[in-house]
């Protein structure tokens, strides 16, 4: 399965997460920094807004796209994709066609030969790997459940219908918590990896089965993944919010961290002054790695003054 391939690619950690599906041609820079879809490392702190920069790069791309159109016969939608900012105008003449066999999450390389991003070499990886802290998944047990019976006969269950309309069940290994609803749907939280989440969900289903219900294991799906890491240098959040206004929200009166909503991949990052970063909102592990590789040069750019 595609999913398994991309997961195995990270165990070696030698290659940045941009290189995953074998169907993509390798004549492009591995990290699509120049695509205009990912936030760029800021070269100068002089108020050139991100939108202007990306539109400028878009125009560059368009020119280069026309030149290299012949080379891209295999990938019609590869270059000149509309940047996925919520307030940008669609660029005439370029379409985002879905690439066959590719998930829409990973952008195809923009131009084959000339990289657009001026400074940062695309192959430089941060060397830091975000650790997964929490996985939330759902599964359908496929039958109606009597929560009172479950609460009565299971040791590890709590049920307080006045407070919440589900049974809260916990198991020791993998250490997780499940919310089991009377419709037969179940939410499993607290696992540290996708496989652990799946194993835990199966154990809960087994407990429900043993209690006498005809439980099945249908539509297991990972809904959210949370990762965290430490860049080990302090970050000027006030500066970051000034230069990346469209993506950041920093209100020290409300919350000490900066909330960075990355567009591609669609991940929310909580960035703290201590250098610790929390990434959440991912459906697959690769999104977390990609988001971190995207934010790391931006944070590094904030550490040194030019």
């Amino acid at each position, binding site marked *: 399965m595609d999913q398994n391939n991309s997961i195995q690619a990270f165990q070696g950690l030698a290659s940045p997460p941009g290189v995953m599906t074998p169907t993509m041609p390798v004549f492009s820079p591995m990290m699509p920094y120049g695509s205009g879809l990912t936030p760029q490392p800021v070269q100068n*702190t002089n108020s050139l807004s991100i939108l202007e920069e990306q539109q400028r790069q878009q125009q560059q791309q368009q020119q280069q796209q026309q030149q290299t159109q012949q080379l891209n016969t295999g990938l019609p939608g590869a270059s000149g994709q509309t940047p996925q900012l*919520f*307030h940008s105008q669609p660029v005439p003449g370029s379409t985002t066609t879905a690439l066959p066999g590719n998930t829409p999450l990973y952008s195809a390389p923009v131009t084959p030969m000339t990289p657009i991003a001026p400074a940062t070499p695309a192959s430089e990886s941060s060397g830091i790997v975000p650790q997964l802290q929490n996985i939330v998944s759902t599964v359908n047990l496929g039958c109606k459940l009597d929560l009172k019976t479950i609460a*009565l*006969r*299971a*040791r*590890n269950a709590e049920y307080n219908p006045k407070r919440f309309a589900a049974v809260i069940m916990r*198991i020791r*290994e*993998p*250490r997780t918590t499940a919310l089991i609803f009377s419709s037969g749907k179940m939410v499993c939280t607290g696992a*540290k*990896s*996708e*496989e*652990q*989440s*799946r*194993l835990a969900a*199966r*154990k809960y289903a*087994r*407990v429900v089965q*043993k*209690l006498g219900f005809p439980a099945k294991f249908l539509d297991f799906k990972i809904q959210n993944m949370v990762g965290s890491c430490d860049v*080990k*240098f*302090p*970050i*000027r*959040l*006030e*500066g970051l*919010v*000034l230069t990346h*206004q469209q993506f950041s*929200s920093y*209100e*020290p*009166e409300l919350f*000490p*961290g900066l909330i960075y909503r990355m567009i591609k991949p669609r991940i929310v990052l909580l960035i*703290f*002054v*201590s*250098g610790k970063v929390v990434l959440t909102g991912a459906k697959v592990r690769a999104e977390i790695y990609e988001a971190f590789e995207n934010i790391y040069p931006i944070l590094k750019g*904030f*550490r*040194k*003054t030019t």
Partner: protein
Amino acid sequence: MIKVLNIQAPTFSVTDVMEAHCQEYKVSLGHVPEELAEDSKGLTKRAIALVELAADSWIVTGRQPLPIMMAAVYLAWQSLKPNAQRLKMSLEKFCKLAKVQKSKTAGTRITEMKGMLYKLGKEIPWYKEVLTPDNVVSLVGDILQHRFSLLRRALKSHELSLLEKCPAGQVNSSSAETSSSSEVSEHAGQTPAKSSVNAEKQKQAGVGDESLKSPSEESNPQTQELTQNWGKRVLFAPPCVVNAKRKRAERPPLHVTGDEEISDSEIESYIRTPQEARDFAMMQEKLFTSNNESS
């Protein structure tokens, strides 16, 4: 929501709000005896300078602005006329005097600011007595006036003290230091009273100085184990890094495939025996009836 309303939230800076905040403090001549009175303009100027210094040393980022402003005003008020009466007055009494409500964390901010001022005040060559974070308030005027050169000196002496501890691998930092000192010396001629533009430049120079510590640390292979708490080896670091709480014991990572066999005995351990279930049901009933009686 910002999208819907098509507006842009203005970015907030503590220095903008400082002036309005300072005017809340009723310590001008009309309200308090002359010994304790302070002109609002002078107080604001000094408090703003203190906040800028605090921002450089990572005291401001990520924190609620009100306690910082309160701490800055308090220290500014104390330092503008550092006589025994003012120095002895605690924050609580000061807030009562000025008719403002004291904030609890302002005390912590005061300690942090005093620590930062102490680090700078140590570098003053003409102060001959023993300096502690407590008696640094009397020197605040001098510190603010010469803050750029004091900062440079503090960084240099910090680097020297680190060199004594681990002599290898510091070649990077010395060359980097000279480039940063040239940046800082551009500002050396300016007087402390600042517009926000200059404050930004100073902040950036400050970032360059202080953060240059960390790359030089990390390049040294010896200190790789010590990068656990890099905050302790830098002159100025965010307080949450310096006072890092102990991490809770991490469980060893579980390597599973997700499709393993689940043993029956493990699942049985999660299910009550029939006797247990009966006992539990009885207990629930008793609790329920006793609740009904009592309510």
